[in-house]
């Protein structure tokens, strides 16, 4: 399998148009692995959905939230190449995402859906 984008491949480096392109790029093997992980987690999530004892347990919701959050993060980091890109983009995305997440939690609390915090 050819590695097309690898920054450490001499062949690729020779073709980089100017020195501007200094940040590392994800490679084909990264893309492939991310897709594999995404598929595996999705299978795991759906599997969990069909285990009644797990669904009934307290771990079900946190486990699903963690799994989907992980999928969310790896798509953003590798496919949206935020891991490799200018830090400005990270700020433009995470700032609003934090405000959005806080708003969601606050709303769920205000509408009585987060019983953990109430007695």
């Amino acid at each position: 399998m050819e590695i097309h984008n690898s920054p450490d491949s001499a062949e690729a480096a020779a073709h980089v148009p100017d020195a501007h392109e200094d940040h590392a790029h994800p490679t084909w093997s990264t893309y492939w692995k991310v897709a594999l992980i995404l598929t595996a987690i999705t299978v795991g999530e759906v599997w969990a959905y069909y285990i009644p004892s797990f669904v009934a347990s307290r771990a079900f919701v946190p486990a699903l939230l963690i799994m989907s959050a992980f999928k969310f993060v790896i798509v953003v980091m590798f496919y949206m190449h935020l891991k490799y890109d200018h830090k400005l983009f990270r700020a433009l995305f995470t700032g609003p995402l934090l405000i959005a997440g806080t708003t969601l939690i606050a709303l769920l609390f205000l509408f009585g859906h987060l019983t953990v915090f109430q007695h």
Partner: protein
Amino acid sequence: MSATVTHHYTSTGLDNRKIAIWAFIGSECMLFISLISTYLIYKGRSVVGPLPHEKWTDPSTGHTFAPILNIPVTSMSTFVLLMSSLFMVLALAAVQNKGRPLPANAGWWTRKLASSQLWLFMTALAGATFLGFQAYEFTSFVNEGLTIKTNLFGSSFFTLTGFHGAHVTAGVLWLLALLSIDARRGLGPSDALNVDICALYWHFVDVVWIAIFTLVYLIR
């Protein structure tokens, strides 16, 4: 990306369009969080069925509705959308590397990987397939007796997933526009930024679905 000829000086060295699309994505976070919040606020508060995860018997007719969400079908469509993101990164890589000579011993797969048209087409096709699944889901729900007017679940479910579907539709049109340009004159490294912007939008629509799939379909 640096191959894009920018006529004007910019303070960060970045292209205006890429900053704008990230700001747009930040804004979209608030849009979808409003929809998701509403769905979750109204979860379990519908006064009549059909319901997403529970059976419901209509007291006036005695008819029992099964839980309406079809997890196997939606798992398939989720998988298709996730794979479309893989196709999208391959399309972008192919555009960025266009014009680079392939090694003499390049095999079939290597040559296929370099085809931006193939991967743009595959991405659009996967997006369209996802929309097909959604159309199937919506019609079967309506046939089973759940419309946007039926109950709080129907209103918030169709609006949330419908908004997401509208975003996918816009993305498919965008991909087809890029594909037609690629077919007409070929997309090269100088167009990579345009493809990158579309890709960022496309992946964002994908991550929104990752959240929706868990919060709406899997968590009961």
